[in-house]
Every structure is written in C-alpha cells, then in structure tokens.
C-alpha cells in the first residue's frame, strides 16, 4: 500500500466530509418522509459511508506513520477514549437517575467528540515534541487558509439553507462557520508573525 502524502490525505478527507455535509443538508430531510422502514433505514445509513472512508484514511495514515507520529496518535486516541468514556458515563448516570433526559439521537455526537478530542490531544502531545499548529509539511493549503475556507463554505451553506433548515441546525452552521473563521484568523496572525520574524521553517 503506497504512502499518501499529506496533501493527498487531506484532499480525500475533504471530499468525503464535503459529501457528508452535502448529504446531511440536502438529502437527510427525505429520511423523515420516506414511506417504508427499509427506505428510512437505507437513507439514514448513507452518511455512514463517507465517515467509514475517513476512518479508513486515518487508519492508513497511522499505519504509514513513523515511530514518533504513532506515539502521538496513540496518546491522542487514548485521550479521546477517556473523554468520550467519561462523558458517556456522566450522561448515562444522570439519565438513569432521572436528572436529565437523554434520547438516542445523542449518539450522533459520539464520533465528532471523539475526533475533536483526538485532534486536540494529538496536537498537544505533538507540541511537546516540537510540532506546532502553524508548522506546515506538504499540505495543500496553509492551515489558516483551510480554516478560513471551511468557515466561508459553512457560512455560505448556512446562508443558502436559511429557509429550509430549522433554527437549531441553522444555529449550529452559523456557530461552526464563525468558529472556523475566527480560528483561521488566529492561525493567520500566528503565521504572519512567524513570517515577519523570519523564523526558519526547517530549524536549521
């Protein structure tokens, strides 16, 4: 199996996430109006396909990593497991005790929380070994540009979907888009300051 470059990996994940987002916004509402249980089930499971592809890409990336990268992946996944485990325990006990009502739809948040915790945990560990958010390898775009682009795309989606989405979904899109833009702006400032200080990329 050939090793994917960072650029190849990122483009594949970006396309899969784009397909997932487009399906959730445009086709997901059909699930509720589907006539048969079989049709409902099939339509409900379609978004799982790009997610499984992203997981497969992540596994391939970890497999092709060197020893230090594998260590950071391991720590990141350990942190993600701990976070999701604790949250599910807390939610489960509170639900059993009748303190709060938790329905099955909360399960949809398990994967995003897992990925977010894994990403943050891995970033923190990589930092302790000299890696940084603004340090780019052979990425297709600088990191700040990717966040700015993602923020712009999400806000555009929110704008064009404003009449067909409910308030909660619209709120999530506006919030996510704004957050991506803000984070991209912060990274852009960090990137610009590193450039203006003339910091050596290579540590030479």
């Amino acid at each position, binding site marked *: 199996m050939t090793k994917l470059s960072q650029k190849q990996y990122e483009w594949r994940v970006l396309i899969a996430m784009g397909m997932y987002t487009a399906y959730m916004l445009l086709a997901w509402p059909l699930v509720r109006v589907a006539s048969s249980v079989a049709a409902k089930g099939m339509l409900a499971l379609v978004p799982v396909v790009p997610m499984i592809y992203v997981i497969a890409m992540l596994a391939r990336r970890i497999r092709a990593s060197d020893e230090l990268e594998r260590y950071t992946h391991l720590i990141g996944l350990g942190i993600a497991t701990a976070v999701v485990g604790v949250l599910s325990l807390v939610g489960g006990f509170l639900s059993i005790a009748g303190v709060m009502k938790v329905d099955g739809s909360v399960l949809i948040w398990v994967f995003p929380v897992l990925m977010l915790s894994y990403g943050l945990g891995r970033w923190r560990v990589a930092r302790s*070994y000299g890696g940084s958010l603004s340090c780019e390898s052979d990425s297709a775009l600088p990191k700040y540009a990717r966040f700015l682009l993602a923020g712009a795309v999400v806000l555009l989606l929110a704008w064009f979907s404003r009449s067909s989405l409910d308030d909660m979904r619209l709120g999530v899109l506006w919030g996510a888009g704004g957050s991506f833009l803000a984070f991209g702006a912060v990274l852009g400032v960090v990137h610009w300051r590193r450039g203006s200080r003339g910091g050596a990329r290579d540590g030479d």
Partner: protein
Amino acid sequence: MNNVVRELRSERGWSQADLAQKLDVSRQTINAIETGKYDPSLPLAFKIARLFGLPIEMIFVPEGE
C-alpha cells in the same frame, strides 16, 4: 540523551527534510531528535548511525557524559 545529529547533518549540507527523507521519518521527528525532545528507538538509532557511517555511541551520548 544528548546527540550530535544536527552537527553531523550540517556537515553534510543536508536540511532536516533531506535527513527525514533518507531515514523515512517525518521532519518533525528529526527536529524532535535534534532538540533532544525525543530519543529514537534502537532500530532508528542504528539507521542514523549507519547513514552517518559512525558507531552509535559517537552519535548518542547519555546525559551527563
């Protein structure tokens, strides 16, 4: 562990990216080794020694020695 990887690399005019490619590791790993933040595994340390043509104990020295 202390090491002289950076010095050996500079003598040969290689960048961190060059060395990373020769050893089939990431540039971040090379940087972490050179700055003393990460001690390589035995196989990687032997690979580094073979690349520079030196005994492993001339490249990696326990701290304090």
